[in-house]
């Protein structure tokens, strides 16, 4: 390694530049998933995650062929846009129920989210009692 500062600076900047490009490439190249609220989902399709509050009746069974069916609305603000969810797989986390904020990951096709994973928000310390 050169002992001259300018050379070190060039090397450092080069490393930083390569790293930045690498990160940008990796980030854009598909390791990220769109995370939307029900009001943002119109016109979208494919793999995505929806953040929302569970509303309506819970119908069916996640282990059954028809799956567990429910709807999501925006956690804050607009409550009129709803997303239909069909979830199949392991039973949802214990805290899952109507009124809870959840993140459902899956594939959005024909106006329906086919969920494969549900994360119920942790009963965090930093929330208002209403949430």
């Amino acid at each position: 390694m050169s002992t001259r500062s300018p050379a070190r600076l060039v090397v450092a900047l080069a490393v930083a530049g390569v790293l930045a490009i690498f990160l940008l490439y990796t980030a854009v190249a598909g390791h990220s998933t769109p995370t939307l609220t029900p009001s943002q989902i119109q016109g979208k399709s494919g793999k995505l995650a929806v953040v929302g509050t569970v509303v309506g009746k819970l119908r069916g069974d996640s282990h059954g062929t028809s799956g567990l069916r429910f709807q999501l609305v925006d956690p804050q603000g607009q409550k009129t846009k709803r997303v239909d969810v069909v979830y199949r797989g392991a039973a949802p986390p214990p805290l899952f129920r109507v009124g809870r904020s959840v993140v459902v990951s899956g594939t959005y096709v024909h106006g329906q989210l086919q969920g494969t994973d549900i994360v119920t928000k942790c009963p965090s310390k930093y929330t208002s009692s209403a949430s």
Partner: protein
Amino acid sequence: MADLGRAALVVTLGLAVYSLVAGGIAARRSERRLAASARNALYCSFASTLVAAAVLATALVRHDFSFKYVAAHTNRHLPVAYTLSAFWGGQEGSLLLWLLVLTGYGALAVAINRRLLRDLTAWVVPVIGGIATFFSFVLVAVASPFGTQTAPFDGNGLTPSLQNPYMVAHPPMLYLGYVGLSVPFAFAAGALLSGRTDERWIIATRRWTLAAWAFLGFGQLLGAHWAYVEVGWGGYYAWDPVENAALMPWLAATAFLHSVMVQERKGMLKVWNMVLVALAFELSVFGTFLTRSGVVNSIHSFSKSSIGPWFLVFVVISSVFSLALIMWRLPLLKAKTKLESALSREAAFLYNNLLLVALCLTILWGVLWPIVTQLVKGETRTMGRPYYDFFLRTFGLPLLLLMGIGPLIAWRKTSLRGLTRTLAWPVGAAVVTGVALAAAGADSSTPGLIAYTFSAFVLATIMVELVRGTRATGSLFLLVARNRRRYGGYVVHAAIVLLAIGIAGSSAYSSSVERRLTLGQSMTVAGYTLTNRGVTVDSKANVTETRAHLAVKGPWSGTISSGDNQYVNPPEPSREVGIKTDWLRGEDLYVIVDESHPKTGLIYVQVLVKPLVNLIWIAGIVFLFGSAVALWPDAREQRRLVARFATAVP
């Protein structure tokens, strides 16, 4: 009583503002009496914050539900330990704890150093005062824990999953770590403001940094263990933004702890150290902003809180302040010596720092990615686990290797021949381990095999160092006692190796099977056969416990139970996993029954076998021990430092 708490916080705010303004004027004009007055104001701010904290603690213990905070986070049924832990269980209380620790740490650090580093501590007072001003303002004006109401008969209580001993210790540990990073930051800023940019500020804050770093590291492991035993998904770290918020400052502080050794020894990396200490501090505040603002989606935070924008403003102002200070004092931060060889101890520290900071910034990039994509593309995108896992392997594995090489390289320069001779035994041990593990089938995961091989290498280098040192001194105890920092560091390295082995084993070599089991039906996972023996329901005063019982045969035989609890007050469920630890193999049999039918005995069960996962928790204890060794006061070291810097203390 709430009035007393509110008044105490207003007094703290006044004292903090005074120590900021008067302290700044005193330091600028070198007015000793005014400086002493500002310093006393800082001491008193701790006392007034202590009064506010005592008011809240008393209200909690007395179940005084006229305090909104007490009613929101406790109820009459809650055991005393969890009632007290509600102090930091809510936003306002946790901010009060932050202010208490900050004023306490600040007052103590200033008191210890006020005579020996007079010029520097004169500037530390207004910096700590500035930080305390922000927190006390938030507590007075935005998020007061002393809001009152007509007292209800009972409170909301604490969520059952938070009623866990780990949750009593985990948050305060993190706060001791987060807030502890304010001390080296304040001393670094003090050094820049006073123009005293030699190594004294580093020596004065070395133990503060080490203690904060140890608390932050151990606190994260406590949180990981809580998630493992309580949340019931079989994992311990989810790369969630709030978890990352604690990891990032820890990584920056780890880099700082290593790079200060280069500055102490060679007078190099002065700018870098200033940047690192500022980065660690800013990330600790940024973490709080992430937790409370709701700006990124996290499994830990639901809603947008009113304090988020205030924290963002504070992070921006303090970052600009830090950068401006460093730029202003660049001429004073020139290195005394230059890097002479790429094969030297200082070069190894530099590589270690680049990797740690790269990992830290990569994680930061992942955390900020939803905000970036929202701003650029109008669509929020979230980084998944593969992104973080990829960069953990990319930067973590070379870091592991460097942990073995670094301590064996000499300062200034090392010949390739000398290095080869030094590394012969450790390399031999690593190769033998790698080949043996590959032959045993561990090559099913290449990163896992590399992690184990590098771990063997690092452990062998530590052994070589200990054997060589013991031969020279004649006693292992004497060896460690004479250089606690170095050998404490080796113990911490051993802890990191255990952590790496545990993470690699439990992630790369774990087995998981999900099944629907009728009564009497069996399943097999990694040598264990589990048979469904039925479901029981047990109703108690405040909880109904549903448990599925499975008979286990295999490396361990017996019965394991898992199910859920439904509480009456608060009306919350919790998942109860079954964990059987085989300490000899370091392996866990982890059973999650996510649905059970008491009448028919039908269950849906997920069974995981997680090899070596317990090494992660053992690593926590070793980490704490190593940190304690490195922190322990050392009279010989102090004499050496006093001789070097006539007016400095470690």
